[in-house]
């Protein structure tokens, strides 16, 4: 009864939220309306000046990494904080006694020639494409976050196929352990902050890339520094992706039996039809 009351209350609240949002949205200018405040107040400057001021062809990159670079630093910190939280909560025993080595699966090498070969063929392209997305972010959609996630996914793919890093295995070169990934994430966030503080050291505001002594043309300097910042985001994000995977997947054992709580009769159920 109590559960039903709760569900009713939740439905009431959500329904109210829905109606309220609907009422509010009707007052908003339509999406993409060129005469809406969102398109006439701040945006024109970004559209007209971004190329000249920041050197980035892609306006999204100009806004994210330069005009509102401080937000991006914050978002990087949010992602790092997620990795930190997972590390604290899930990998609590680190530094303590060693875990028992679990069986194959998410935590062990998958011995399959097909998977191994496919990973060898695909992974280099995946990792390279991640770097391309990072570098090309100035011109096309992409940048540090997207590239970082792709790179992290490449690492996760390798990790899934080749198992965790183990000192007695050659695969340990690739699978980044929790600590190594975490160091990567920290280093990325630190690098971002360091770029910001470096700008202060050269007399500008925090993250004021224009003052950095990287060349004559301020727009070009900003472009270079933006790439630096994006690279820092890239490192932080890919490190965090690896941390999340390592902390969540560690200890998963493939037992050769059905998964826990697996219902072993799906085939019989199918035959009814």
């Amino acid at each position, binding site marked *: 009864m109590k559960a039903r009351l709760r569900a009713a209350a939740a439905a009431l609240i959500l329904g109210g939220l829905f109606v309220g949002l609907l009422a509010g949205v009707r007052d908003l200018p339509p*999406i*993409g309306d060129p005469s809406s405040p969102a398109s006439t107040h701040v945006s024109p400057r970004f559209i007209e000046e971004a190329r000249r001021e920041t050197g980035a062809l892609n306006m*999204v990159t100009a806004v994210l990494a330069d005009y509102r670079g401080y937000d991006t630093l914050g978002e990087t910190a949010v992602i790092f904080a997620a990795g930190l939280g997972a590390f604290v909560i899930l990998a609590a025993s680190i530094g303590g006694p060693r875990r028992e080595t679990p069986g194959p*699966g*998410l935590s062990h090498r998958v011995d399959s020639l097909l998977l191994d070969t496919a990973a060898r063929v695909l992974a280099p392209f995946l990792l390279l494409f991640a770097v391309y997305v990072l570098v090309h972010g100035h011109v096309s*959609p*992409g*940048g540090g*976050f*997207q590239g970082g*996630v*792709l790179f*992290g*996914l490449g690492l*996760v793919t390798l990790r*899934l196929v080749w198992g965790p890093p183990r000192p007695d295995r050659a695969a340990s070169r690739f699978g980044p352990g929790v600590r190594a990934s975490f160091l990567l994430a920290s280093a990325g966030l630190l690098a971002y902050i360091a770029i910001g503080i470096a700008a202060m050291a050269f007399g500008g505001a925090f993250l004021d890339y224009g003052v950095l002594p990287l060349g004559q043309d301020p727009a070009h300097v900003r472009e270079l520094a933006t790439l630096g910042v994006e690279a820092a985001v890239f490192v932080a994000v890919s490190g965090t*992706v690896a941390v*999340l*995977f390592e902390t*969540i*997947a560690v*200890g*998963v054992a493939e037992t050769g039996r059905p*998964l*826990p*709580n*697996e219902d072993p009769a799906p085939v019989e159920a199918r035959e009814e039809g």
Partner: protein
Amino acid sequence: MMLDPGGLIATGLLATMLVTGAVALLVNDLLVAAALFGVFSFAAAAWFAALGAVDVAFTEACVGGALTTILLVAATFRTTRRLDR
């Protein structure tokens, strides 16, 4: 008005998101829920792309479609597959 293809596609994607999201919340099998979240994310990514936010769509496809699904499955393996047991 309702019949322009862009609007229809957007409506379809939003409906997909609504249905997959709701069903993911209701099913007891967590692996199914994870898979549904993958579908949800792809619909969201496609919708973002339809809105012209290619960067966001890109991110959503990477994070929601691939990474989150992997992590959810890994977490399911570590804990329990069914909610009602």
